[in-house]
């Protein structure tokens, strides 16, 4: 079966549209014994027009998912932020403390016909986390012997989608100046403008100015949100914030 993956890897390099990519992923998913695939950036796609999402889930399921604004809090997406190699969904309870709401999402998915699945995390430094998932219909057996193949398919599919997104979204990624980034990092650590001014040796007003410019670049109005956005796209790192 490795030659099927080689063929996919070769084909996706030439594809230019998301529809063609969806068709290619759908075909290889089927050949490897799975029914559904879903390739996504882990953000709320209704708010973020540049986020990637390609899938062949049942229509009603995708709509419900969007209405509930589940993009970034879906338990599968959360689990995939914790690891860098593929995992089967039956492992979720070992990876995460599932909340009642998480269990409801998983139950609903089963009722919609989405059974056991396998998710390949896609982490590119400085970019939103993403993943590519493959799922069986409810009640079908997962083709365990094909998981290493799907690991490769998921990685190459995500990179192809990323390349298309880069062509579609012409503007450069949001970039803060070094000073803005430092202010956001300290704000994320819970420091006030005055405290940040003390650390950086500038006035409270200057810190306020830097942060306001950072808000503008992200299009948000609160220091919590600017910190979350900066952590999310890798402008600041979790270690930078959590390091004592």
């Amino acid at each position, binding site marked *: 079966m*490795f*030659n099927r*993956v*080689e063929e996919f*890897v*070769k084909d996706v*390099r030439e594809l230019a549209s998301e529809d063609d990519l969806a068709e290619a992923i759908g075909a290889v998913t089927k050949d490897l014994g799975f029914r559904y695939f879903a390739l996504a950036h882990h953000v709320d796609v209704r708010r973020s027009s540049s986020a990637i999402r390609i899938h062949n889930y049942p229509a009603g399921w995708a709509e419900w998912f969007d209405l509930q604004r589940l993009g970034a809090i879906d338990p599968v997406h959360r689990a995939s932020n914790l690891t*860098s*190699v593929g995992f089967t969904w039956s492992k979720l309870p070992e990876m995460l403390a599932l909340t009642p709401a998480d269990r409801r999402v998983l139950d609903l998915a089963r009722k919609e016909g989405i059974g056991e699945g396998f998710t390949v*995390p*896609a*982490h*590119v*430094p*400085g*970019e939103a986390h993403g993943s590519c998932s493959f799922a069986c219909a409810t009640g079908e057996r997962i083709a365990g012997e094909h998981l*290493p*193949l799907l*690991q*490769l398919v998921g*990685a*190459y599919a*995500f*990179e192809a989608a*990323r*390349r298309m997104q*880069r062509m579609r979204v012409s503007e450069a990624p949001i970039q803060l100046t070094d000073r803005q980034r430092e202010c956001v990092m300290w704000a994320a650590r819970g420091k006030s403008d005055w405290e940040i001014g003390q650390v950086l040796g500038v006035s409270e007003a200057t810190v306020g100015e830097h942060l306001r410019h950072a808000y503008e670049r992200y299009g948000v109005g609160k220091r919590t949100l600017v910190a979350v956005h900066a952590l999310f796209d*890798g402008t600041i*790192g979790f*270690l*930078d914030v959590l390091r004592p």
Partner: protein
Amino acid sequence: MLRVESGFSASPRERTLRAMFEDRKSVFVDLLKWDVPVLDGRFELDQFDNEAATYIIIADEAGDHLGSARLLPTDRPHILSSLFPDLCASPPPAGPGVLEITRFCLSRRQKAAERLKTRNELVSALVWYALDAGIRTYTGVAETAWLQQILAFGWDCRPLGLPMRCECGTIGALAIEITGGTPALLAANHIWQPVRDPATRVPQAA
């Protein structure tokens, strides 16, 4: 600052090389828990650190090691052929125009943003070196955890076989084709850093 070192004499006397072998121990033994030999409790060195190896090294102005990779010729025993032949579905590319990238290492002393900059310089230096030395293909064994990042550089990278589990994670074999178009592919992904004035040294070992 880029340095290219050809060959290697048995004792790592010189500062940049010493720091490189120390950082390799810190990354591959202490952090990633690889079961590889350690010399004097400080330096990670194995049987492939010999006169045939080439080192691509990124160092700071003071000569301290920031990142490096070791290139092995593929017309003699190398990592893929001697340690992991099962990772390839068919015989991997080998010969005078093919080098194996091994021990891709970024010093842990850097912050996240600095590490990415060093990573980009090192990847660019590898492409520059291939074009300069007439290398068409790099092969390598990579942890699957890094695959997405390696693909996101934008270069032409294909799998040589299925990923497999080993004691330190899931690993797979890759081949990367280098052509005159590769710098532009890296540039489209904001990876490419033009290489200036590399300090090339003659072989140290007889």
